[in-house]
């Protein structure tokens, strides 16, 4: 904690970075992501077990885009997001100073991308047991039950797109849902539009999702939509041996191919 502050303060004081991305105390014992631009403000920077938000998404926002240097307090999920953003040419190494924080909450110092790759490989990842159980439960259902399950699960969706807004990988300037000619995704939140939206979301994240679970956490109606991406990441790993968030230079599964890809359903 003090170590994180010290690093952040130094970076700002030496003008290596113009903004530090981290957390500050919010209202009612909550924490909130914050941008620190002055070394004296760093006193307000905090890190504790409540700081679970994936703040890598702010790297694509104007404040960070316009700064010459950005430091970020990075938990394993944030580090993985940064690596994937770099793999998609969204951020450059020179600009980002990663202040690594292990899953136990210990400071791992400043990581360059090479160190971040090592860090990312050593940190635990994978599905929570309850998510795994839910995936298995759904896979055991019959086709009709699965369809009904998802239609029902998506039906409370109010199309607030918090899942999109909280996802570091959903950085497109103009999203397909805003396209209204042709209208890919219906605007109203009826069952049909909800199914299509979540299906599109899952497909767009297939092979790119780093499984931080932020989409599920930010969902105001608690749709288990993260397991769609979890299931696909698992599948992509098995099928194509490709995993997002481990390398800063990487072509994600659906942007690549091999001539020997195996399938058993094309006639």
């Amino acid at each position, binding site marked *: 904690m003090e170590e994180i502050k010290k690093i952040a303060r130094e970076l700002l004081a030496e003008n290596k970075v113009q903004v530090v991305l981290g957390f500050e105390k919010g209202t009612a014992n909550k924490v909130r992501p914050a941008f620190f631009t002055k070394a004296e403000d760093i006193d307000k920077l905090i890190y504790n077990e409540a700081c679970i938000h994936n703040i890598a998404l702010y790297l694509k926002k104007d404040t960070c885009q316009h700064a010459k240097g950005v430091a970020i307090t990075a938990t394993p999920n944030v580090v993985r997001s940064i690596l994937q953003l770099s793999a998609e040419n969204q951020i450059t190494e020179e600009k980002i100073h990663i202040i690594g924080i292990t899953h136990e909450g210990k400071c791992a110092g400043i990581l360059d991308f090479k160190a971040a790759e090592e860090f990312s490989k050593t940190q635990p990842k994978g599905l929570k047991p309850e998510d795994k159980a839910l995936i298995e439960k*759904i*896979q055991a*259902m019959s*086709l*009709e*039950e*699965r*369809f*009904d*399950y*998802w*239609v029902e699960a998506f039906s409370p969706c109010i199309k607030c797109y918090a899942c999109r807004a909280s996802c570091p990988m959903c950085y497109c300037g103009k999203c*397909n849902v805003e396209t209204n000619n042709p209208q*890919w995704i*219906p605007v*109203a939140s*009826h*069952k*049909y539009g909800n*199914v*299509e939206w979540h*299906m*599109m979301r*899952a*497909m767009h994240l*297939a*092979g790119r999702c780093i499984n931080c679970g932020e989409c599920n956490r930010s969902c105001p109606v608690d749709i288990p939509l993260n397991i*769609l991406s979890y*299931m*696909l990441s698992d*599948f*992509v790993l098995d*099928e*194509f041996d490709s995993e997002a968030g481990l390398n800063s230079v990487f072509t994600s*599964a*659906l*942007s*690549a*191919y*091999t*001539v020997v*890809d195996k*399938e058993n*359903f*094309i*006639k």
Partner: protein
Amino acid sequence: MSEFQPKIVAFVCNWCTYAGADLTGTSRIKYSPNVRIVRFPCTGRIDYMLLTKAFASGADGIIVSGCHPNDCHYTSGNFYARRRWIVFKKLCDFMGIDTRRIVFSWVSAAEGSKWADIVNTTNEEIIKLGPYDSYHKLSTQDILE
């Protein structure tokens, strides 16, 4: 002839399957008229959203077809498409969308008879499965509710 005549949409690539379907016609091979062919520049252009849109607009079955691997007019379009289909099929299965209704195939410009065969077997299969009411219901009824 059964009473239920399914609507089948075929998304095909311009260079192989479309030419293949053309050959079926010029060879005077009869095949089911239930198929509506939509021509694309390449299988790599066939967006999975188009498939869901077809189901939503009343299709009971879908055929997606293009050049055989290594025969793509653009060298690699069908390889990208193949990966996308592998993942999309998995997602559909997981979400309970009936993948028996989506037929993927490779049909070259010389395979007129294979095209007729694919359309006919798909047609029979979809007749057996019946109309895709559960998805159609989503896109029509539930909107009005």
